[in-house]
């Protein structure tokens, strides 16, 4: 196993910058998820690490070697693809043996390693089958086995679960996580599904438009998103973002809406708001930090119910507030109807404030 360092990585296609000055360090044995919407540059970044795409500028270090100009085969990596990329003409056994044959290992050693990998992944009975005779989950496991059999320095995974159905995906998710724990493997994992990243990774790198937005542990990214993009991308349902303006009246600072109401701020939040360059401030709140009231209470704001989505153990209420839609979760025993008048109370400790111009999070000292 080894660590991986990306330094000022850039990839351009003509005038289009697919990857823009991405720098991050993956420590030895760490599981890092590259996450972002499609077209954000995460797969390109992975292909750059794999050597399948040439870099425009910057450095990639795997272990202690700069691998910028090395062929994929010389980088000591293994990769699992979204469509598994199993060799269709080869049996499962030969698929697993291929990377070892290419490294010119003796026949009996190949046999031993293939059988060991098959045993670990519980597919000894499938060794003679062709990939097309396997189910999606089995194919995925063979792909994982082909990566595992080599004992590489780094595992690269490109949306390995996207082609599986929902139930199998959850099951394979825990298998891959277990695989990481048992092997202490260094894994770089690309996904567009923030839930996969949050549940599996030690650290997540959130990307958008070719830029690395934030690189931290899932808990940290969840609790302290650096900007509005990260705030709205991580978490489900998404964080509600309400555009407001700061106003000062009678010595206190508050956020006011064009709808006429205003929300008083705690001293700490006032400190944050004063950091903003403009009066425009965006209030961000996750569904679990907002309280729903059926009647006005001090500090609450009037809103109107848009839809109600019961999920069984929790009910999600979407409400209109100052031109934005706000997600609130309530216990299932609270009955609200669409178009009903409600009052929302925000948790001052756990609310997020963003600069309305730069979209960056506002922090207190």
């Amino acid at each position, binding site marked *: 196993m080894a660590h991986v360092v990306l330094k000022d990585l850039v990839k351009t296609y003509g005038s289009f910058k697919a990857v823009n000055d991405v720098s991050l360090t993956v420590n030895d044995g760490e599981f890092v998820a590259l996450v972002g919407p499609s077209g954000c540059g995460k797969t390109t970044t992975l292909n750059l690490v*794999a*050597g*399948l795409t040439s870099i425009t500028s910057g450095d990639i270090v795997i272990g202690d070697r700069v691998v910028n100009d090395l*062929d*994929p*085969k010389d*980088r000591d*990596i*293994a*990769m699992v*693809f*979204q*469509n598994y*990329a199993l*060799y*269709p*003409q080869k049996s499962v056994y030969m698929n697993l043996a*291929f*990377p070892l044959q*290419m*490294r010119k290992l003796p026949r009996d050693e190949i046999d031993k390693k293939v059988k060991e990998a098959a045993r670990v992944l519980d597919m000894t009975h499938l060794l003679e089958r062709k990939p*097309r005779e396997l189910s999606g989950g089995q194919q995925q496991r063979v792909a994982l086995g*082909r990566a595992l059999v*080599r004992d590489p320095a780094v595992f690269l995974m490109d949306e390995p679960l996207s082609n599986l159905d929902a139930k199998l995906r959850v099951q394979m998710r825990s298998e891959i996580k277990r695989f990481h724990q048992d092997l202490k493997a260094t894994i770089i994992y690309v996904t567009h599904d923030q839930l996969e990243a949050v549940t599996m990774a030690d650290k997540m790198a959130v990307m958008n438009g070719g830029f690395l937005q934030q690189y931290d542990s899932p808990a940290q990214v969840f609790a302290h998103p650096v900007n509005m993009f990260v705030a709205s991308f991580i978490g489900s349902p998404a964080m509600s973002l309400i555009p407001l303006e700061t106003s000062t009246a009678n010595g206190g600072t508050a956020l006011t809406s064009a709808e006429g109401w205003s929300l008083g701020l705690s001293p700490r939040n006032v400190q944050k708001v004063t950091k903003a360059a403009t009066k425009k401030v965006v209030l961000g709140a996750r569904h679990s930090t907002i309280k729903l009231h059926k009647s006005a209470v001090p500090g609450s704001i009037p809103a109107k119910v848009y839809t109600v989505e019961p999920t069984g153990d929790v009910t999600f209420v979407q409400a209109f507030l100052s031109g934005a839609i706000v997600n609130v979760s309530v216990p299932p025993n609270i009955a609200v109807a669409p178009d009903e008048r409600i009052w929302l109370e925000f948790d001052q400790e756990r609310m997020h404030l963003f600069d309305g111009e730069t979209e960056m999070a506002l922090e207190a000292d």
Partner: protein
Amino acid sequence: MSTIAEATARGQTRRRMRIDGWRWAGRIFLLFMLLYTAVPMIWMLITSIKSGFAATQFPPQWWPDEPTLASYQKLLDPQNSVGQDFLRFFWNSLFVSTVTTILSVIVAVPAAYAFSRFTFPGRNFLFFAVLLRNMFPAVIFLVPLFILMRAIGLVNTHGSLILTYLTFGLPLAIWLLKGFYDNIPVQLEQAARIDGATRFQAFIMIVMPLSTPGIIATAIYSFIGAWNEYIYAYTFLSKNEQLTLPVGIQRFFSENTTDFPGLMAASFMMSVPVVVLFLVLQRYFVRALTEGAVKH
């Protein structure tokens, strides 16, 4: 209730009859097509085992009174001049067609792969330029190509034919193979390259085996095209010992009086390699032409 049931039953019968009508029309049409293609070949075969006199009789003998293999013996006998010529023409055709096939596979495989996998300046233009060649009838190029061949001293050589057949066969070969490579996921090569193969090894070990049906189809296509070609062979070659079969047969048998059984026997033997090739490899051919039509 019963009336409804009866009406439904009657409706169903009527519908079934109409479908049957269409089906029979289809069968008759297919039968007609079969006769249209098979009868000339059967007649060719029957004529080839007749004597020279029986072949020109009218009304014709539907089945020869005295079937004979004399024509075949004459054609395959290296001792007499007819047999010598025929065998030489056969060899010439085989040589030209085989070399054309090998060269066109050697050129088409990497060309098609490049068109499928790489982006390079002028890629689309080149690809359509390659196809443009096939939009014009062959005769248009006859005179210019003859002048060109004369200028480079290739008239009366098999090289002139091989070059010409390549310009005809390659565009379609490249086009056919490109479709094949487009259908092979690029991730397979990427996986192979990560698993320890060079780009070239990935191509040879992973992509080539997967594209075998396409390569075989391409080879059959080139071979048949070269084997049957007449007009260029007729124009470029004038020396008797260089002629290919289509030209050779025609010249050889129509000089004085036409030996119909001999002509038919030669024609039959000329179709044998093509038919055999096609029968042996037809499953690849069909697969090549339908590959990618549906998602697997």
